[in-house]
């Protein structure tokens, strides 16, 4: 052991070892490893306001530069897939709607399309039911993108955007409430159709909204797009090109911001999307700015689809004609949400023994789904939402797996953030638009 002025040192097989006792020992090791005491590990989340819910990031920092990011998920795991196996096929829609809570109607749509494919009744879904589904999915896409704009604005310092985004979303939630009785977690799409028809008042509200939102979108753009801070925080930040996206399974607006116009509504249409005229917006910058541009443009495209859907809406049945599957009730929006309409209850209780038996059997027992498995994918606001449903021929799902885009896309955070600044982790993470309810299910 020798003394070099500050600390005792000795040679070992691993190299020189210092025994430090003083307060200024960092000056001793500086000459050998200038970085060793610069590196710190920061735990961000799971209750951090800028992580979009309960996402936890373990960051290894060197100064302000991120060396390593490790995302940790699972804090919102609620066992939705397991629970589905203990309810009948119709009840499943009330569970899946709670997964990604900002896009509940997409979860329902993916699940219902999978059940319908298992039943082999995809072609029997009525025109009006499909049109209503498209209409509501696009409204939901707008509300989801508005929340993205609101929260991302807040995280990047544009607090007023947060207020505006949520304000406009309220209009959409009002429309949902008017139709399904609930603002979120609707269980409005059911295997076979939709729970009930759109009231005239809701259609009027949608028409008003079509006039109202474009003006507001112009305001958002006027507020953000020319703003130097917004540009600095988004342009060239969290770049992920097409190769990176495909390797990591990233789909949706993030993939389209890299230039690949992959949108399942166009490439593998469902619910009659092939009958609507709309464009698939893309950007080529592959950064947060590009994702912002793509999402704003998607809101405008969704407005176009909604307008066409309203024009296509013809009177007709909203549920499949097959009485072995069709929900035997007529539902009405009551004060406390949705339930059976009183006239219907009076009719089946008072006049028809057979319909009472039928109602009882279908509601308590449910319908049987032929054994087999299907995979159905739809374009969710965050990318490809896949539902892998397996039936063993019974009245309950044997297994339902939801390939949620938030879960898959979150894997891209390290690729986007490592080597960049800490502040860009926030921007990059926000640009993926993760919703932990969907990620953790």
């Amino acid at each position, binding site marked *: 052991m020798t003394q070099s002025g500050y600390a005792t040192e000795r040679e070992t097989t691993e190299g020189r070892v210092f025994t430090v006792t003083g307060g200024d020992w960092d000056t001793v090791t500086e000459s050998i490893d200038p970085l060793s005491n610069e590196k710190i590990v920061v735990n961000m989340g799971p209750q951090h306001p800028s992580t979009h819910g309960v996402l936890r990031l373990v960051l290894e920092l060197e100064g302000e530069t991120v060396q390593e990011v490790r995302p940790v*998920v*699972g804090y919102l*795991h609620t*066992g939705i*897939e*397991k*629970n589905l*196996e*203990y*309810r*009948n096929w119709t009840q499943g829609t009330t569970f899946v709607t709670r997964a990604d809570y900002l896009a509940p109607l997409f979860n329902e749509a993916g699940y219902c399309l999978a059940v319908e*494919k*298992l039943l*082999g009744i995809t072609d029997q879904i009525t025109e009006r039911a499909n049109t209503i589904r498209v209409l509501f999915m696009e409204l939901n896409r707008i509300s989801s993108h508005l929340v993205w704009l609101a929260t991302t604005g807040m995280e990047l310092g544009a607090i007023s955007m947060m207020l505006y985004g949520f304000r406009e979303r309220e209009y959409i939630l009002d429309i949902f409430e008017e139709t399904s009785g609930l603002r979120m977690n609707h269980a409005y799409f059911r295997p076979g159709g939709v729970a009930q028809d759109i009231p005239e008042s809701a259609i009027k509200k949608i028409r008003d909204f079509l006039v109202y939102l474009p003006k507001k979108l112009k305001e958002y753009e006027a507020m953000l797009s020319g703003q130097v801070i917004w540009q600095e925080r988004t342009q060239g930040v969290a770049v992920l090109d097409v190769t990176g996206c*495909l*390797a*990591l*399974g*990233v*789909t949706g607006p993030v993939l389209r911001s890299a230039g*690949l116009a*992959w949108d399942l509504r166009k*490439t*593998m249409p469902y619910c009659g999307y092939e009958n609507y005229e709309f464009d698939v917006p893309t950007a080529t910058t592959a950064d947060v700015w590009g994702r912002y541009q793509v999402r704003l443009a998607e809101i405008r495209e969704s407005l176009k689809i909604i307008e066409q859907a309203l024009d296509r809406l013809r009177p007709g049945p909203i549920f499949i004609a097959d009485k072995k599957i069709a929900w035997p009730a007529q539902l009405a929006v009551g004060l406390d949400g949705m339930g059976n309409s009183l006239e219907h209850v009076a009719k089946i209780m008072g006049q028809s023994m057979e319909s009472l038996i039928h109602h009882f059997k279908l509601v*308590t*027992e*449910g319908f049987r789904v032929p*054994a*087999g*498995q*299907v*995979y159905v*994918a739809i374009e969710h606001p965050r990318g*490809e939402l*896949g539902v*892998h449903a*397996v039936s*063993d*021929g*019974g*009245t*309950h799902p*044997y*297994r339902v*797996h939801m*390939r949620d885009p938030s*879960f*898959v896309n*979150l*894997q891209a955070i390290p690729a986007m953030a490592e080597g960049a600044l800490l502040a860009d982790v926030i921007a990059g993470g926000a640009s993926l638009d993760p919703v932990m309810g969907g990620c*953790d*299910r």
Partner: protein
Amino acid sequence: MSIAPQDGHEPVGADIDAPAQTPAGPQKGMFGITGTGDVSGFGGLVRRRPEQASSPKPYGGYFDEVTDALEEAYPAFADAIEKVVVDRGELTLHIKAERIAEVVQIMRDDESLRFELCSSVSGVDYLGSDPRRLHVVYHLTSMTYRRRVRLEVAVADGVSVPSVTSVYPTADWQERETYDMFGVVFAGHPNLTRVLMPDDWEGHPQRKDYPLGGVPVEYKGAEIPPPDQRRVYQ
């Protein structure tokens, strides 16, 4: 409404030795009634699920092109592919577990296959109906040709499946989820740890012999059992 745990009904964590919930073998009865409650006569009904056989060629649509291209590009095709099933307009290739990494490599790289995106990896537990109870299901998407294909492997409990993460990095978390939920071990995965459940959790919750858990709920004097103990109409 109050939630009243009964004696002996406290929620418990994992118990991997618990009895199976959903029997997948031949199903007996019809309304979930056993014993003297059954006056319908349907209690004696036995329903067997037919084993899904390989589909005959031609498969139709693009399925023939996909299987032919794979056969051409993959010398061990006959050995690796156990059966080809076409059902509900979807193509499923049942693959020997030890071959899956080779097959996905060709599925991704071959010019006439080009399955660039691994959309989904998930597990299914066929307890009771298949001795190789744990199935891993891969859904591949070809963006070039706009096709989808499903690959399925089956392993017994404790047998590992080669990881496809070197071919599709996106399978990383999805394989972790399948390990977490079903206990399938993916050999060669860079970091096979739990992803949704806590690190120290015991058991694999999506297995069919893993109980759902729950407590009876009392409402206005009547008690409703937890969902996994209610009558099941089969």
